[in-house]
């Protein structure tokens, strides 16, 4: 019997992510054993997903025979799976600047101060500002590096990640053996339905955020992982999402959006997550066809109606998963007949190779102005402010379209824009960003460990609601200040700061002592020490009232010798500065 879907009216199409559409995620909730329940080790969970996996309620789907083949109509268009190699521009250490890209402004124009809606608690230093936005957190070394070569040259380097030596981080990642492996390899390396590969991915993601030198690349990997969200860990993508991460997201994060979209549409993890792997002309499943439009490309206001959602799903019939977990195209499942989605129409007869018709459709979506605007808006929200400035969104939309959906030029335009320069303090750190930035600034370093390394951070950040990849609906983690303001988030953040400063979690990482993290001889008086610590961590001095609060805590006066504080209270002083509202400004 068919899976029941709630009737979809056009009104539903205008809803922002209406709820009832997330597909076969029963294993998620099956795995959703609560904290109040007994603890459940991963073996029973994977077994639960095993029991949930059999198709019990759909009518028999006509499956392609083993001999079904893809009919590939030879075309002149390049294979969409070919990916351009990342550019190997040598890093520029001299003063030459590219003529085309606008230089990063060194001082924010005073005139835009009136547009600030959050009080700016982060000071005015543009280098700290750039690093807070374009990396997972500034460190003293990074600040010095950017000052040395200039922000534009640094950004150029970051936009050519292949040329950045990342061997230290790569060496660390070898402890997560399934990273970069294919589905057959993962199946051979772990038990069936094991969550090990997903845990490897989550922890590897944390390791890269902490220690990769390709920071902007990692930030963009996170951005696109959210844009093309596939909830992890769940039983249904145990052997698939780990592949999606490198094959779809990492391969294309700084490439062309059109390539990223094509790769995502052929990603078994995505096809499973949004039910396209079971969608056929006989049992059409609209989930991916809809989310492709609503979340991945043009957006809910682009003017498509339900008939177009159906045609979108029809275009994607046949995109499914093969026996070895690879992308497969089942021609027998394909819908044949004319289709229209927004401005894309196609006769879609069986003279055409259905796989290729879908590719043309995806390419159309990738180049659609509404897609450009949505990507531009999301990037501006991510990197500039919660309510992106219209002027910047327009600029970025144009750059996206004129560069044939390439992302790097959009980022260059963004970071070089006056709107970016004027947005100091207008974003706030979400739990993941807070914890990683804390660990980075404290000088947390890679340490010996094993596959369980960084599990502590995984749980810590997960407890605050932002474990990497764990957001459940397909739209990705929210990216505004308000969405993350909560009591439990605040307490979680404060407690995370103490834990990191005091080096509670030693699984694969070691945090420097506060005295070592200070990176200089401690100032002689308590007043000067308070300033030294806040400059070290925040790049600014705190207000008079805040300084007084910290001195009262120690307890000390401006001129008290700092010796006792350095000996007994430096960790708590660090923690309090990190707990200040100034730290949360990103």
């Amino acid at each position: 019997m068919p899976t029941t879907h709630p009737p979809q009216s056009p009104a539903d199409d205008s809803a922002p992510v209406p709820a009832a559409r997330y597909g076969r995620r029963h294993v998620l909730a099956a795995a959703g054993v609560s904290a109040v329940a007994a603890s459940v080790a991963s073996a029973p969970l994977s077994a639960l997903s095993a029991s949930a996996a059999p198709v019990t309620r759909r009518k028999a789907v006509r499956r392609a025979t083993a001999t079904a083949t893809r009919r590939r109509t030879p075309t002149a268009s390049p294979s969409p799976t070919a990916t351009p190699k990342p550019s190997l521009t040598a890093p520029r250490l001299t003063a030459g600047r590219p003529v085309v890209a606008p230089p990063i402004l060194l001082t924010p124009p005073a005139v835009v101060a009136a547009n600030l809606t959050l009080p700016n608690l982060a000071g005015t230093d543009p280098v700290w500002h750039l690093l807070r936005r374009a990396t997972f957190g500034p460190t003293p070394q990074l600040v010095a590096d950017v000052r040395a070569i200039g922000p534009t040259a640094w950004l150029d380097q970051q936009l050519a990640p292949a040329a950045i030596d990342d061997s230290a981080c790569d060496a660390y990642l070898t402890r997560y053996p399934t990273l970069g492996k294919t589905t057959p390899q993962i199946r051979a390396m772990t038990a069936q339905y094991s969550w090990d590969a997903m845990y490897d991915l989550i922890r590897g993601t944390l390791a890269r955020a902490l220690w990769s030198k390709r920071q902007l690349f990692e930030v963009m990997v996170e951005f696109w992982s959210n844009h093309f969200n596939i909830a992890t860990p769940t039983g249904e993508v145990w052997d698939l999402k780990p592949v999606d991460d490198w094959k779809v997201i990492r391969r294309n994060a700084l490439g062309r959006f059109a390539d990223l979209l094509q790769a995502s549409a052929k990603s078994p993890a995505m096809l499973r997550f949004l039910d396209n792997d079971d969608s056929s002309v006989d049992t059409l499943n609209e989930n991916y066809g809809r989310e492709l439009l609503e979340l991945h490309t043009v957006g809910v206001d682009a003017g498509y109606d339900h008939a177009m959602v159906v045609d979108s799903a029809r275009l994607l019939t046949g995109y499914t998963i093969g026996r070895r977990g690879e992308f497969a195209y089942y021609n027998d499942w394909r819908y044949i007949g004319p289709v229209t989605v927004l401005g894309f129409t196609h006769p879609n007869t069986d003279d055409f190779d259905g796989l290729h018709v879908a590719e043309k459709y995806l390419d159309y979506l990738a180049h659609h102005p509404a897609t450009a605007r949505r990507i531009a808006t999301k990037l501006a929200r991510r990197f500039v402010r919660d309510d992106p400035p219209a002027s910047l969104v327009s600029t970025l939309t144009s750059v996206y379209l004129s560069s044939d959906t390439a992302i790097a030029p959009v980022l260059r335009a963004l970071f070089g824009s006056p709107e970016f320069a004027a947005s100091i303090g207008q974003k706030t750190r979400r739990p993941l960003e807070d914890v990683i930035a804390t660990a980075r600034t404290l000088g947390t370093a890679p340490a010996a460990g094993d596959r369980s390394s960084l599990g502590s951070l995984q749980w810590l950040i997960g407890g605050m609601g932002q474990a990497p990849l764990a957001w459940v609906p397909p739209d990705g983690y929210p990216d505004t200040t308000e969405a993350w303001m909560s009591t439990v988030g605040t307490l979680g953040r404060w407690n995370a700061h103490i834990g990191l400063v005091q080096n509670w979690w030693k699984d694969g990482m070691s945090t420097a002592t506060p005295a070592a993290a200070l990176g200089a001889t401690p100032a002689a008086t308590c007043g000067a020490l308070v300033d030294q610590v806040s400059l070290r961590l925040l790049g600014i001095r705190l207000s008079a009232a805040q300084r007084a609060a910290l001195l009262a805590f120690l307890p000390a006066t401006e001129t008290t010798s700092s010796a006792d504080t350095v000996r007994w209270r430096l960790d708590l002083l660090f923690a309090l500065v990190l707990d200040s509202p100034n730290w949360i400004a990103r």
Partner: protein
Amino acid sequence: MSPSPAPAAPAQRTGDHDGCGCPGTGPSRRSVLAALGLTGAAGAASSALSSRVAFAATPGPTDTLVVLSMRGGWDGLSIVAPVGDPDYARIRPNIGLPSSLALPAGGVFGLHPALAPLQPLWAAGSFGAVHAVGQPSGSRSHFRDSEELERAAPGSSLRTGWLDRVLAVRGSGTAFQAVELGSEMVPSSLAGPMPAMAMSSVDEFQLSVWDGVRPQFRTALAALHAGVTHPVALQASTTLAAVDTTAAMKAAGYTPANGAVYPTSDLGKGLRDLARLIKANIGLQIACLDYGDWDMHHDIGKPGDARGWMHRQLADVAGSLAAFAADLGSALGRVSVVTLSEFGRRAAENGSGGADHGHGQAVLLLGGGIVGGRVHGAWPGLAAGALDQGDVAGVTDYRSVLGELLQKRCGLGALDAVFPGFTPAPLGLATQI
């Protein structure tokens, strides 16, 4: 053309199905929570602009509403078994509860023997049930149905949870107005702008500095945020007020009243903390707890075997709720507990000693204002024609159950702000407060 063989069936479970009581695996629990992503953001829950710290009293008497989410789709046909239904034994020859083992519940029903600790409350009329409860768009998908259940606004574009809307209707409240216990993430039923809290336990909800320095640390935190108009500063005040409260509660310690002994399970601990919070009179209006896993596709347990999966878990539920009721004593008169699962399970058993995803479920009710000692709602029966695609029909909309509690016990008037477009059917399951 013969179809190719279906993809290889997943391996049958060979491992144990440890369901409850295993200590010391905090990380595993949390991984699961992360997977479930109870609204992910430890709220999309509170708006800095609307968070309230004021201790304003809510007008009129109102029960504390306790929503016990049974995750995984719990099997109402085992818990409140229709032992007198002629089709029951026929379609559940192996896992069906024999009437000789069931505790009498009136009508065709019998309670699972594991509910024995609650039997006195059934007899006294503060423990009851509703059967054949469903939600309109049952998809039999855990995630989809959980989301819809907690959003409780089918056919609308609302993205808030129904409990958030209840808080919004109420208006004023305290920092502790809504608490998720036993987890650090707020459930999606509380998603929305109204402030809500989540804590693993009362004692653990604390600043992680050593006791000797905590007061000064707390003072410094407050002073660092004083006069700052950033949203984070508002959250800081609320959070500090909350940790002050829990610190005082922890210092005071707690001994359950009336000799109540809670199981040492997570549910037992959660309900014990809930009793503490209720007795502390800090404005708790809504409490949420989660309990699972009930997704018993297989090996639900031989009826009468106390080591079976269903029996063990249900015994934990019964023992914990019985202790909770005893601990509260007369305060139970101002508490309403309701269980909710995303769906029930199929009427017929499957080939693995369990049952697959279904639709209509059984809801348990506990509280002084509950009309207990009976199973409410119309029972459609288990004849083939009465089933909904092989499942118990969802004759009673779960919003009727919740709506009646909200109106009769929680002082709400009209319900359209909470359940837009829905008119509840009266069930007579609660008395007017």
